[in-house]
C-alpha cells in the first residue's frame, strides 16, 4: 500500500434542488476557487492537468468539453472530459499522477439537473436503440425490475429498504450542504406514491444542483502543500454487461469488481474490519443494500438486517452515508461520487463539523452511474 497520490484540496457548493441564480459555469467556478484556496495552489501556475466529468445530453451541449477550461483556470493546459462516474474521473487523475507524468491534477464534477426539463426522456436515450428503446419503457422501470429481483434473490424486504431512506434523510438534517434532509418514518416511504413497483417516490433520490472540485498531488508535492494529505490507497472500477439481456440482475457485479480492485490495491482483506465508514451510492434505496453486499461489507442478503439493526447508522459499527448520501443530499447524477469522496476527505480530516464521526482513519466512497448502466467505481482513502 504505497503513498503515491493524495487529495490536498476540496471545494464544493451547497447542493440544492434549484439554482436559478447561477449557471453551471458559476457553480464550477465557486467550487474551484474554494478548492484552490484549500490546497493553496494557483491553477494557472501550479496545476498541470484538469479532468472534468460530464455527459453531453444532460449538459444540453454536444462536446461539453469545450466549455470547461475557462472557469477552472485551465486555459492552454491539458484538459480532458471523462463521460463516466465522477470516481472514474478521480481514477483518471490518479493515473495521470501515478504514471509520473504530472504532480498536481484537478478533478471537477457538477450537476445542473434542474436545467433538464425531461430527464427521464434523456435517460431513455441511453437504452439500446435497436433492442430496448422501441419498448418505450421509462428508465425507472429498469430500477423497479432490478429491485424486485434483488428482493427476491436476497430475501431483503421493502421495509429494510425504507430504513435506508429514513436513515439517510435523517443524516442529511445534520449536513448543512444536503438538499433533502427530513425526519420521516418507514411507513411514509412504503405508502408513498408508487413509481415503478416496488419503488415508491420516496425510494428514489431527487435531483440536486452543485459542483465539487478536488486537487490531487503526488506524494512529494502533497506533503509540501498540506499537513493533512488524504491518501488514495486503493481505486477500482468495473462494468457489467451494458445489454439488459445479459447482465446479472440481482447482484451488482460492477460494484464487486470495483471493490475487489480497490481493496487489493489498498491491501484490505476484510472491509468490515478495516474500513471505518463508507459513502456509497444510494440513488435508489435498495442500491445501498445491494452495494454494501457487493463491496464485501457483509454477505448477500445481510445488508437489510444490518441496516434494521442500526449497524450502518451514525453510531453504528459501519456508518454508511453519514452525509445523507443521494437520498438525503440530492442526486447529483455523475457528480454524486465526487461528493462522496469530498465527504470522506472531510471526515478523515476531522472537518465534518456537525456530522463528524469520531476517530476515523479509513473510508470508502463508491459511485454508480445509474440506470440503465452497470458501471461503478470505488476508492479507499486514509489519513
Amino acid at each position, binding site marked *: 500500500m504505497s503513498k503515491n497520490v493524495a487529495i490536498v484540496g476540496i471545494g464544493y457548493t451547497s447542493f440544492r434542488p434549484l439554482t436559478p441564480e447561477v449557471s453551471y459555469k458559476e457553480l464550477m467556478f465557486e467550487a474551484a476557487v474554494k478548492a484552490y484556496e484549500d490546497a493553496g495552489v494557483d491553477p*494557472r501556475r501550479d496545476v*498541470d*492537468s484538469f479532468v472534468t466529468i460530464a*455527459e*453531453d*445530453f444532460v449538459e*444540453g*451541449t*454536444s*462536446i461539453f*468539453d*469545450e*466549455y*470547461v*477550461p*475557462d472557469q477552472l483556470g*485551465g*486555459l*492552454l*493546459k*491539458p*484538459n*480532458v472530459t*471523462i*463521460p*463516466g462516474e465522477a470516481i472514474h474521473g478521480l*481514477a*483518471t487523475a*490518479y*493515473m*495521470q499522477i*501515478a*504514471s*509520473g*507524468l*504530472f*504532480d498536481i491534477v484537478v478533478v471537477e464534477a457538477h450537476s445542473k439537473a434542474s436545467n433538464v426539463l425531461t430527464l427521464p426522456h434523456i435517460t*431513455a*436515450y*441511453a437504452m*439500446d436503440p*435497436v433492442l430496448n428503446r422501441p419498448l418505450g419503457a421509462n428508465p425507472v422501470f429498469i430500477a423497479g425490475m432490478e429491485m424486485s429481483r434483488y428482493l427476491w434473490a436476497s430475501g431483503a424486504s421493502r421495509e429494510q429498504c425504507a430504513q435506508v431512506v429514513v436513515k439517510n434523510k435523517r443524516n442529511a438534517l445534520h449536513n448543512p450542504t444536503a438538499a433533502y434532509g427530513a425526519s420521516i418514518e418507514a411507513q411514509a416511504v412504503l405508502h408513498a406514491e408508487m413509481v415503478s413497483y416496488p419503488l415508491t417516490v420516496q425510494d428514489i433520490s431527487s435531483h440536486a444542483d452543485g459542483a465539487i472540485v478536488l486537487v490531487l498531488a*503526488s506524494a512529494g508535492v502533497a506533503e509540501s502543500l498540506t499537513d493533512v494529505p488524504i491518501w488514495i490507497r486503493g481505486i*477500482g*472500477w*468495473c*462494468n*457489467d*454487461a*451494458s*445489454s439488459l439481456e*445479459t447482465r446479472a440482475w440481482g447482484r451488482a*457485479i460492477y460494484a464487486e*469488481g*470495483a471493490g475487489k*480492485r480497490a481493496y487489493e*490495491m489498498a491491501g484490505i482483506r476484510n472491509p468490515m474490519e478495516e474500513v471505518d465508514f463508507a459513502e456509497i451510492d444510494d440513488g435508489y434505496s435498495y442500491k445501498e443494500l445491494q452495494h454494501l453486499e457487493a463491496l464485501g461489507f457483509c454477505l448477500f442478503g445481510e445488508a437489510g438486517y444490518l441496516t434494521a439493526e442500526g449497524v450502518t447508522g451514525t453510531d453504528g459499527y459501519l456508518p454508511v452515508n453519514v452525509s445523507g448520501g443521494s437520498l438525503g443530499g440530492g442526486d447529483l447524477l455523475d457528480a454524486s461520487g465526487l461528493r462522496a469522496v469530498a465527504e470522506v476527505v472531510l471526515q478523515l480530516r476531522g472537518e465534518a463539523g456537525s456530522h463528524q464521526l469520531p476517530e476515523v482513519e479509513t473510508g470508502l466512497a463508491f459511485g454508480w452511474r445509474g440506470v*440503465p*448502466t452497470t*458501471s461503478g467505481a470505488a476508492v479507499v482513502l486514509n489519513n
Partner: protein
Amino acid sequence: MGMPNVNRSLKRRVAVVGAGMTKFVRRAQETGKELSFEAASMALETCDLTLNDVDCVVHGTAPDSFDGVHMKGEYLADGSGAWRKPYTRCYVGGGTGVYAPIHGWYHVASGLFDICLVVCEEKMSSCQPHPQGAFLTIFDHTIERPLGPNLLWIFAMEMNRYMNTYGLKKEDIALVSVKNKRNAADHPCSLLGNADITLDDVLNSEVLAWPVQRLDVSPITDGAVALVLAAEHVAQRISDKPVWIEGVGWNLDTAYWTNRDLCYPRYVENAARMAYDMAGITEPRKQIHIAEPYDPFNYKELHHLEGLQLFDRGKAPEATALGITQRDGDLPVCPSGGLLGVGNPIAAAGLMKVAELFWQLREEAGARQVPGQPKRGVAQAWGDLMQVGTVVVMGT
C-alpha cells in the same frame, strides 16, 4: 500560463503491440457495438491475445448526438470487450481519437494494468439528414447558437484567416487533398481513395462555404479502430516488434474562440511541445520521420504541421508544393491517406492515425509503406471549437 509542468520521472514504458481497423464506409450496416467488436477482435488477433488477457478497456467516441445514444460509452462497452472489466470513455471532441491511446497509456504507465485495449468508434450515418445538424448543438447556447452556425462556416473563417495571413491561394491548399486522396488509394479500408484525382478536380468541386469546397473536406464516415497497449515486460514477451509510445501531449484553449487569432493553433504547439519534451525530442524536424496530422479539412494539415513545429508558420504550403510531404518525400505526411482520403469517423479517424504509425514503423504498411525505415512518427488530432490538440509520438 505557459507550458504544463511535465514531470519527467516516468515509471513504465508502454508499447503498442496490436492494431485492428474496420473498413471506413458511408453507411455501415453494423451497429456501433458491432463495429467496435470487429476492430477490437482484429487488434487482439494480430498479437495473439484474447479478451481474457486484457486487463482494462478504454473507449473514445465523439458526440452522443451522432448516434442519438445517451451515455454512448456505456452502450458500446460490451461490444468493445469491457464485459466485467474496468472501462472508461475519454472525450475531447475531435481530438478524442489521439487522446484515447494517451488515456490507455497512463492506465498502463501508472502500474495499475499491464494490457489495455483501446477502441474508438464512430457511427455518423445514423444522424439524419446530416451530422452537421448535430454540430449545431456544440455552440454556446446563449451567444452563438441563436445564430445557427455550423462547422463548415467557422472552419471557412479559420481557413480564410490562414490564407489571408500568409497570402495563400486555394491552389496551395488544394494540393493536400490531391496528395491524401491519392495516398488513400493504397489503403484497403479507405472510403475516398482516388489515384487519379487532380488539382482541377478539387478546385472545381462544389462550393460549400467559401473558401471551403467539397473536396477540401473529409466525408461523413462510419468505422472503428482498436489498439492493444502493453507494459514493457509484457510487450517484450508477446511481440517481436513493439512500437513504443514515447511522448504524449494534450492541450485545450478557451471556449471563446472568437477571442483568438485563428491563423495559428497555439494549443497544438503546446501539446506537441509536451509530447516532444517527454520523448526527449529537441529537433522535431530531424527526429520525426513520419507525420499524421489531423486533416478533416485540407488547410488543417498545413495548420497542424506548423503547430507541430515541423514547418515554420505559413511555410507548410510551400513544402507541400515542393513534394516534401509526399510519401517518398523528406517528411511523409498522412501516408495513410488521412481523413480526406481514408475517411473521417471522428474518434476512429484519430486512432487510425496512431494505427498508421504502428504499421509504418513496423514496416507493415504494404503499398503505403514509406521508404527509408522510419524510426519515429507523430500523430495528432484536433477538435472542440478549434480548441484542442492531442499528440502522440511513437518510435521503435
